[in-house]
């Protein structure tokens, strides 16, 4: 598997953006009530946003695979789902870290928390389903269906804070009208959203390449010039048997 120049550029851009995001997150004014604890928002909100984005891309990849039957769409769907599960887990973890000092508990039965945990579980099942199926066509077909059905959870998570009484704050940025937060903080948040989105893009790109390489191995399409893990090791040769 060769790493293209564009992939390297994307990796570098993501790292640079993360560094800039870190500067913005640490220099933005502290919250009047929560102090520095509020800075977790610069990680928590981008990871939650990426969960939405990643599972939307999985939906698009699933629908596109369904229409075209092109493997590249299946690679995109699974790559995005894997990265989305990682970021959803990170959003749950950072939310929990913030919840303990502010709400007094690591976890509470809040609609936003519960629906996000369910979202995490459904896409874990999506990844589990893919691992359980060995035939690439069957795997792509079934996971495309689950990728479409599971997406129903995403609007439920976003609107849960509107539909039910909740401890979690209502939408601050993704809502009609002016965002309800200080503009300096909003700028820092936006820089981090962009940085994390670039990281997401770089990870999905790498994951797509791995999926394509996996498929090439499954179909025996790797060329002779491609290095394989372990090929430098050879079985011991017995000179006597070789002479016979």
């Amino acid at each position: 598997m060769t790493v293209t120049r564009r992939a390297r550029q994307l990796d570098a851009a993501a790292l640079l953006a993360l560094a800039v995001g870190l500067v913005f997150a640490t220099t933005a004014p502290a919250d009047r009530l929560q102090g520095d604890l509020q800075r977790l928002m610069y990680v928590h909100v981008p990871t939650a946003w990426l969960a939405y984005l990643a599972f939307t891309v999985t939906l698009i990849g699933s629908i596109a695979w369904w229409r075209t039957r092109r493997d590249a769409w299946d690679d995109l769907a699974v790559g995005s789902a894997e990265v989305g599960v990682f970021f959803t887990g990170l959003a749950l973890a950072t939310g929990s870290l913030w919840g303990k000092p502010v709400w007094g508990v690591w976890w509470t039965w809040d609609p936003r928390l519960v629906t996000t945990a369910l979202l995490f579980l459904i896409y874990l099942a999506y990844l589990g389903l893919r691992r359980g199926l060995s035939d690439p066509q069957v795997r792509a077909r079934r996971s495309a269906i689950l990728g479409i059905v599971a997406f129903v959870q995403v609007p439920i998570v976003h609107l849960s804070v509107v539909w039910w009484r909740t401890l979690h704050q209502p939408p601050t940025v993704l809502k009609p009208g002016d965002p309800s937060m200080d503009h300096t903080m909003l700028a820092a948040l936006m820089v981090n959203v962009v940085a994390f989105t670039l990281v997401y893009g770089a990870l999905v790109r790498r994951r797509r390449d791995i999926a394509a390489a996996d498929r090439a191995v499954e179909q025996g399409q790797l060329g002779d010039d491609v290095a394989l893990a372990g090929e430098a090791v050879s079985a011991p040769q017995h000179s006597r048997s070789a002479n016979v």
Partner: protein
Amino acid sequence: MTMVHWQALVGAELRVELRAGEVLLTTLPFAAAGLLVVAIAVGADVPLLRRLGPGLYWALVLLFGSLVTLRQTHADRPARRDLLALLGIDPAVQWTSRATAATVLLLAFELVLAPVAIVVYDPSLDGLASQGAAVVLVAIGVGALGTLAADLNASARGSTSLVPLIVTPLALPLVIAAVQLHEGAAYGASPWPWLVLATLLDLSVVLAGLLTARPLQEPVT
């Protein structure tokens, strides 16, 4: 003709269950034991047991219900699917018959388990009509979702653990609706919002099952 196929396939599924007794003689006693064990663990706190009962009943219906759709005695096997495909039976009819059989078994499961929950937990019996509707809607929803999840996981490694992982999060609105119907009846609240929610979820799952039945049908081997 479609109706005849559907009836024959549902009949076959139910006859197999009648002979094997996997749902009513094996799964159901475990669920009933679950109700008893939790009551023993909580102790003789009658008001607390009254509050816990309905939620625990629906949680057990959801968890054991997904096992009902996964039963080992399921008549649906690859060879049988191939035969039905060669006979030209519509995949949507096959899916509907499996979902119907699962729903009937779940209904029986719920109806037998309910008296155990009533005797052990002594919950209030207000709003019996809406509770009856909840029993039917949960059976349809879990039956259809379980059948869809079982189809997605057919022949997959680890499908026994994957099906509950798919069914439980997606069926949770049904459990919430059923519990809220019970709570609301005690305070005279209108049952309609929860009944509409459960009905909409059931319709969506049935529609998804019908639409995906044909694409999920594997080529005959």
